């Protein structure tokens, strides 16, 4: 039986990034295929967040190339990269990413409004995702009134609402108890499975890593092992 190998959604090649004397990434390379679910692990300061931001095109590394859905990010101008991020990438950071003035619902609807969706439709879609993440009853609250874990789930809903091809999440379960963490990872897995999106999760949690297809381990800004789970 011959199946064509799945297309590559994101690829980082020999990426270097230093901040002054501290080297965050020292030639990290990683490749993520369509529909693949990858855990990125490593000690604190090993460069995980930096790698994620490079894959998102937020950070332009000093050297190396990053490709996302067939585009070499270096060849795109800022406006093009912005549009690419808006349409193809869902991003979840460690904390503090919700707009404090907007309600949970409006935060989730925001990316759709940027894409010129009608407000009703955008808010309906936002409601759907908040419900799936178990925070539907908090739709009218502002981030300041939510717990850390609740905020994180709203942020995940916002990352998923645009049905991106690539979901990048930095410690999405860091603020959650083990039961909720499992539920949230399940939602992320099933949501990306439905849409065929690839998922990259930075995590310290072995259980989260085990729930994904592959684990990429970083040390000192370099990928030291890539093992496929079971």
């Amino acid at each position: 039986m011959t199946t064509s190998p799945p297309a590559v959604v994101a690829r980082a090649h020999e990426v270097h990034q230093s901040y002054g004397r501290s080297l965050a990434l020292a030639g990290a390379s990683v490749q993520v295929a369509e529909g693949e679910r990858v855990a990125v692990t490593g000690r604190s300061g090993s460069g995980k967040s930096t790698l994620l931001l490079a894959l998102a095109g937020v950070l332009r590394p000093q050297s190396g190339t990053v490709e996302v859905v067939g585009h070499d990010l270096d060849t795109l101008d800022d406006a093009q990269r912005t549009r690419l991020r808006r349409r193809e990438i869902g991003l979840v950071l460690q904390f503090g990413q919700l707009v404090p003035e907007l309600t949970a619902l409006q935060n989730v609807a925001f990316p759709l409004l940027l894409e010129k969706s009608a407000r009703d439709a955008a808010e309906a879609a936002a409601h759907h995702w908040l419900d799936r993440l178990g925070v539907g009853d908090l739709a009218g609250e502002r981030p300041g009134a939510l717990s850390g874990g609740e905020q994180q789930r709203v942020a995940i809903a916002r990352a998923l609402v645009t049905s991106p091809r690539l979901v990048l999440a930095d410690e999405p379960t860091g603020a959650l108890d083990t039961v909720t963490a499992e539920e949230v990872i399940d939602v992320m897995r099933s949501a990306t499975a439905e849409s065929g999106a690839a998922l990259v999760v930075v995590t310290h949690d072995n259980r989260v890593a085990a729930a994904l297809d592959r684990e990429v381990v970083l040390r000192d800004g370099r990928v030291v092992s890539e093992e496929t789970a079971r």
Partner: protein
Amino acid sequence: MRTVVPALLRAGAGSRALVVVAATAVATAVLMAAASIAMLWFDGVPSDLVVDAVGYGTDLEAVNWIVADPGTRGGVLFGAIVLVLPPLLLLDQAVRLGAASRQRRDAALRLAGATRRDVRALAALEVALPALVGGVLGIPTFLVLRSLLAGPGFLAPTSFPPLWVVPLVLVGVALVGAGVGARAGKDDPLGTARRVDLRSGLSWRGPAALVAGAVLLVTQLGAGYGSDLYLLLTFVALGLIVLGLVGSAPWVAYGVARRALRRASTAPELLAAQRVLVAPGAAGRAAAGVGAIGLTLGTTAVFSGDVMAMGQWGGGDTYDVGAVATAVAALVALAVVAGSLAVHAVESIWESRRETAFLAATGTTQADLDQALLRQVRLVAVPLGVTGATIGALGYSGLLLVGESLAGPRLVAAVVGILGTWACVSLAAWAAARLVRPVAVDAARPVHLRTE
């Protein structure tokens, strides 16, 4: 610029003190000009205890018709005092700069054992000192202002308020500064509420003063025009209206933001409306000066319209000069307001730079962020300015011209005044948004995504 402004803000105290100095300097200078105008009532008094109208004493000879005539001088004086409001409101705005980081510092001080009184005293001192410096700098600022105003004859080239007024103004300015500073530090930094109270900053005192002033003004409409009591009560009524308008600004902010939120269909509209709605007090205060300026512009417009109708425009006399000079003064005040709007915008942008950086990281373009900023600034300022101009134009017409119709040139002048105010305020809002754009661009940079 891109790196300087945020650096100043990070230093926090520095830029705050700078704006406090500038605002108190301008306020002091305008107050001294008002005092000089007020002193004209006593010009020539020492010689024979008789206040003659035009042409008595050196100062009176040097000033123009409107200021020299005791009948219209009251109006000029009132206008001058109203124009003290924008710099005072800017001072108020400046005092709130960096509130969040100061609150963290104050909390640390409290945890280290400082009493609430210690913290309040520090807060008072932090404002009183630059306010005093600004007050002293106000004296040379007044001299510059005097040479500018002497051209159209609003002040005599040599006029100076009596020397005893100067220390009084300085002490007053420092006390106001200490009071405002202490108020800014009045909340105990230990323990903060999580839930946003949408109605915080809204007080009934503003609308109450507005209503009281309007009622008082209406009772004066039929009263004996020209008597001392009439003049005094009219002054009180106008004062209440001005303060009421300023105090109602947060309500205007709350109202327009609610409405804008319901109607928002794009991302920038939504963002702008919510940013105003969560802090109507701050947004309203930032724009409050616009109301006072609208009032001046509306009144001046109708006044000029009347003069033109009477055929005196450009006739070599001073009405036209007066109207133009008042309008120019209002425009300068508008620049101060633009500064005030900018200070408020910088504050709200910088406080939420991480979230802004995230919006940019997830695909919000700088154009969308810019648009949200401009909308946020305009949202409150434009309705406040237009309301002020309308009250000024209609109030002035009603006050001085009872029984006459509003038709003809006066109506044209009122409409021109209101539209002109709309245009000026739009321009000020645009300027404010431009001014803070470097900060807005900086806030969107990915460095702010970093964990703290």
